[in-house]
């Protein structure tokens, strides 16, 4: 996964966006809330006016608003909410929603048919499968139970039995939402536990033994180490190095193959090599830095060389409210920037907050670089790069340390705290914290490519320091919390729609909202092309014409001028309104994306969850007020 700009903001940055306030989340939230309220009031007034006449209508709307703030909100009783919640819970269970859990278990059982056992990183595959399956199942569950309950009540007239009791509309809505959330949670928790065991057990394996082993002199020339390789099991084997300790026991660790390692031991005097289970999964907590590049002549640029790979899509969504007011911006995407080998080109990372407390033994630098060969070069050798640490203030710089590039895996380099280098005047051993880290605590690391004519690719999110790790279980839990938040949002929407729509229509509407959330980036893309006057297939009607006529995306539309104008005008109107709606709706793919963090072994950082919580709360409140309003007015009408 390539991290995008919005993945690097802290919570306050996301909320307030100090240098781009128009794009901030808080502005978006407030504006949308106000818009929702205004639109709601206007529609309410119009409906009431249609029924009762203009002045009566106004009074009834005003009465509802007054009721909300004067009676209903303050008078909401937790006991009644709890009672209604229990009712909703029981109702949902009676509707046999536990089948969802059954489907999930069946899915897990048959997962083996569809998961590729030979993949290079089975952990990532298993985790992402499990999280995606859970996510979709829970969303479907939320869709169904939330959309059908209230309309069923209304149709069966059982709603009257509730409404005639001293129960407020707020309590009805709140009770239902909380009841369904409880059902979902009761399903989610066992699914989470089952997934955890599925993943850890699925990755558990043994190697039958040692294939070959030999004693070789070690790097210092004094002692010996044992190197060898394990048997070929589960489509891979490991190489290892064992060290002998004072008692004659052998112990060592294998290399990382398919994302895991084993510990191998042999007791003194025994012949058996004990290969333990794979080391448990962990989640890295990365510390990122800023990145800028030097081009081949040494001039500073913001983006590296483009190696010509196809660009990914998306990146518009972070523009926030700017879209609504009509200022569309370019997609803000982070793509890999390449550094040319054998030249002055480099990628320079500036890491803040490098303190002794965090990095006690050494500095763990993790790299996830890409190698681009412009010519074949030495085929049987990997591309090489160098790492240099520097102090931007004092000019101290270490000697270059060479490394070989391992693509598509996160490479781990331990930089010792004392390195040979030059402090600006003499060559001596430099201490990282004394000489290389500035007073503010920043450290610069420079990456270059050694092989001439070849390129190394990097982004801001692919080179980081790793001060600590957290457990995989906690990370998985955070991923499940994110799924839980999505569920809450969908339930709120479902209940909201069900207050004024028929059951199936409510479900359809909620589904459409979810779908629009998924399609948002595509809609933004189309709008961007329409705005910048590029011919990339156009909006819905134009696309339909092109498909029917089997025309390409980039040719002129093959209809007469008047039809073309009408079609393009209609398309612009449609796309702009869809854009507005998509911006108002929650950005679900982003929330789904937290599964990526877990699957790639990165910690789901606090700010990310914080953002999700804020977004869910905001949408829940909006849905709550709309539901209250609709239920109240409906009550009156019925």
């Amino acid at each position, binding site marked *: 996964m390539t991290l995008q700009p919005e993945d690097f903001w802290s919570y306050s940055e996301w909320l307030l966006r100090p240098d781009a306030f128009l794009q901030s989340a808080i502005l978006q939230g407030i504006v949308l809330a106000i818009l929702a309220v205004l639109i709601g009031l206007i529609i309410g007034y119009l409906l009431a006016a249609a029924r009762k006449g203009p002045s009566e209508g106004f009074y009834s709307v005003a009465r509802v608003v007054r009721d909300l703030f004067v009676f209903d909100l303050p008078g909401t009783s937790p006991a009644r909410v709890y009672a209604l919640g229990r009712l909703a819970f029981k109702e949902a269970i009676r509707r046999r929603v536990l089948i969802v859990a059954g489907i999930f278990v069946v899915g897990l059982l048959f997962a083996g*048919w*569809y998961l590729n056992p030979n993949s*290079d990183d089975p952990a990532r595959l298993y985790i992402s499968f499990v999280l995606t399956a859970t996510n979709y199942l829970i969303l479907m569950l939320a869709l169904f139970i939330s959309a059908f309950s209230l309309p069923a009540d209304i149709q069966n007239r059982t709603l009257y039995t509730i409404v005639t009791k001293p129960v407020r509309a707020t309590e009805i809505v709140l009770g239902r939402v909380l009841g369904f959330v409880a059902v979902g949670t009761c399903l989610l928790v066992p699914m989470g536990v089952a997934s955890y065991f599925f993943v850890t057990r699925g990755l558990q394996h043994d190697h039958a033994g040692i294939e070959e082993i030999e004693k070789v002199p070690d790097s210092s020339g004094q002692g010996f180490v044992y190197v060898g390789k394990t048997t070929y099991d589960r489509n891979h084997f490991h190489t290892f190095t064992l060290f002998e300790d004072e008692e004659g026991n052998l112990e060592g660790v294998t290399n990382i193959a398919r994302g895991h390692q084993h510990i191998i031991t042999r007791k003194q005097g025994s012949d058996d090599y004990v290969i333990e289970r794979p080391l448990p999964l962990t989640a890295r907590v990365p510390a990122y830095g800023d990145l800028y590049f030097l081009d081949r002549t040494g001039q500073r640029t913001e983006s590296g060389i483009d190696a010509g790979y196809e660009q990914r899509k998306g990146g518009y969504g972070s523009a926030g409210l700017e879209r609504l007011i009509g200022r569309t911006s370019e997609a803000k995407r982070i793509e890999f920037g390449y550094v040319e080998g054998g030249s002055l080109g480099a990628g320079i990372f500036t890491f803040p907050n490098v303190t002794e407390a965090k990095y006690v033994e050494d500095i763990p630098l993790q790299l996830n670089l890409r190698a681009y060969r412009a010519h074949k070069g030495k*085929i049987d050798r990997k591309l090489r790069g160098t790492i240099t640490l520097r102090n931007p203030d004092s000019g101290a710089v270490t000697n270059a340390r060479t490394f070989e590039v391992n*693509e598509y895996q996160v490479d781990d380099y331990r930089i010792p705290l004392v390195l040979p280098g030059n402090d600006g005047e003499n060559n001596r051993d430099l201490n990282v914290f004394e000489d290389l880290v500035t007073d503010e605590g920043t450290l610069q690391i420079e990456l270059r490519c050694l092989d001439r004519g070849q390129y190394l690719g990097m982004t801001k999110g692919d080179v980081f320091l790793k001060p600590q790790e957290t457990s995989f279980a906690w990370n998985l839990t955070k991923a499940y919390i994110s799924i839980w938040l999505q569920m809450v949002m969908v339930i709120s929407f479902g209940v909201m729609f069900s207050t004024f729509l028929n059951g199936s229509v409510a479900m359809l509407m909620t589904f459409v909202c979810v779908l629009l959330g998924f399609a948002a980036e595509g809609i933004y893309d189309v709008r961007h092309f329409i705005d910048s006057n590029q011919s990339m297939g156009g909006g819905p009607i134009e696309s339909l014409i092109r498909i029917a006529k089997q025309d390409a995306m980039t040719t002129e539309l093959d209809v007469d001028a008047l039809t073309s104008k009408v079609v393009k005008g209609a398309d612009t109107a449609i796309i702009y309104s869809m854009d507005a709606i998509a911006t108002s709706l929650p950005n679900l793919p982003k929330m789904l994306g937290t599964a990526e963090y877990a699957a790639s072994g990165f910690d789901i950082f606090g700010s990310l969850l914080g953002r999700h919580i804020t977004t869910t709360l905001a949408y829940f409140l909006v849905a709550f007020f709309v539901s209250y309003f609709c239920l109240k007015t409906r009550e009156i009408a019925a």
Partner: protein
Amino acid sequence: MNLSHGLVNKLVYLAILILMLIPLFLLGQPESGTSERSGGQLTQMRDDFEISEADLGEINPASETMKLSSLGMRGVAASILWNKAHDHKVHHEWDRLRATLNNITLLQPHFEKVWEFQAHNMSYNVSTEFDDYRQRYAWVTGGTEYLTEGVRQNRKAPTLIWTTGWYYGQKLGMSDEKRQFRRLFAEDQPLHERIRAEGIDVDGNESLGPDRKPDNWLVGRQWLKRGYQLTREGGVPIRRKTPLHFYETGPKWLINHAVAIEEEGELSSAAQRAWQTASNGWINYGEETIPTTAEFTIRLGEIDELARRITEQQAEFDELTGAVRDEMRKERIQQLTDSQRALLDIPDEERTDEQRGEVTKLELLITPKPMEIAKRVPAKDKLKAIELAAAMNYTARRINKVDGYRQQVNYEYWGTRALAEQTSLMVEARRLVYEADRLNENAELDKAIEKYEEAWGKWAQIFENYPLLVFDASSDDLMDSLKRYRTAIDSEEFPDDFPLDEFVEKRMSGAYSPDEYEALREKQRKLNADQQRQQDLLNLDFRKMMSDAQGSVKAPEPTEAEEQAAEPDGAETPSESKPDGEMKQEESPAEESPAEESPAEESPAEESPAEESPAEEKPAEDSEAE
């Protein structure tokens, strides 16, 4: 009371449902296995077209489940998956790409192009995205394993089998990383296990290279052989591939194997054996029937037989219709203009090139065609003449086809090359150059120069024997080695009596024209024919001595032998023994290709069918030749 409205409705609906069940049953009833044509219409149609799951390949429950669960929207699901696969590729998410490709084949297991496309994607596109050559190898073999699964699920798809064989050969053996890939393949025992499990012989002599480990070219050829079994013996039609090229690849892989091991330094008798096998394979390929776009099938190796046949037919026809032909010719000459006639009168040696061109065109005008002659023949011979003319036409068409197809696969060139490479002379020459290059790398210049000079002598001899090889890839590296030699002896020019002067000159002058190449080929044929004759004479003497010693026991044989000598004999030689260095039998297929000229230049009925075994022709010819 009468039945309520609702009840009536329900009864009507029930009746309609039951009625609709009948056509459903007729259409969809599965086979009951009792009789030949059991089952509904659809089942029978499936049987007739052989498209039921069990006919096409093994039944895969995961695939069936996925197809069913798409609820009829299999196309939509497949399109979404293809889109996702492309997204994964753009984002460089390789394991997810692989997982998605597996899922695609669950939905579309019998669409051959899907397997081919995605296997190509993996082996050729995805593999190059990696920096480490071992990962590239893993993805190339990932593509071939993908194809292997496709083959398993599509039992009647020879194209898939062919593609698998092609990838094992071409991708592992021709890419930039071929040395590394070949080495990795030879040592990849888990892969050999998997290939063995498919029923491909990885351990037999046919699949092992000189180091007694499986060779990628030979294993690829085993795959191709399986495809050939399927089409020739199994009767499955080849789709989307020309039969000529479909069958060419197997023997070609043998040739490529020999080239590869020589490049890697294997320049001993193992290389010679490899070239011998390659030559045999190539000649066998010439003996197989290949369907053509015409209504007849051909064999690539039958050109000489056809040439002989048409000569005989021509002779017979001339005998029958000679007079008529002359008459017609005179008539047509009468119709020419004066200047044209004047042109014809000029003797050939005195014509300019332009005039020669003109004369050729005129000849076309005045020479009557066989059918035209046949029609003018008097009634008593007319039928026979027409039959002969038709037969000549047919033979001419066949010759045309065979010649054209031979050119497409460059049949003669590869045959010559395989023959030449088998000889110890060639292997020796290559070995010397290889060793000289190695010595040069290690900066042992004196020894290198010595070896180089020895090598040049041998190469000069090779080019004398096989002038065809001057302009070809087998001597490409020679120019590089010559450059190294020049650097080693530290001089810009070659010494005066340098044996390869001619070669260098020809090479430096650039590409040859087609006419030059034609001329080279003629020269090659003449050389081969001369050598052939010498060999025949030697053999003849020996046999004569033998037959004299055995006396009159041999007497009745000559008549038999004469008969046999008159018959065209095309079906031998290839499978006969090929001891190293016996140019005669080995060269015959190569030299006979433009066989029209050999009868013309030698006296007819004497040595024209030179590939006939000496025992047959010797007695009859001996008396005439001496």
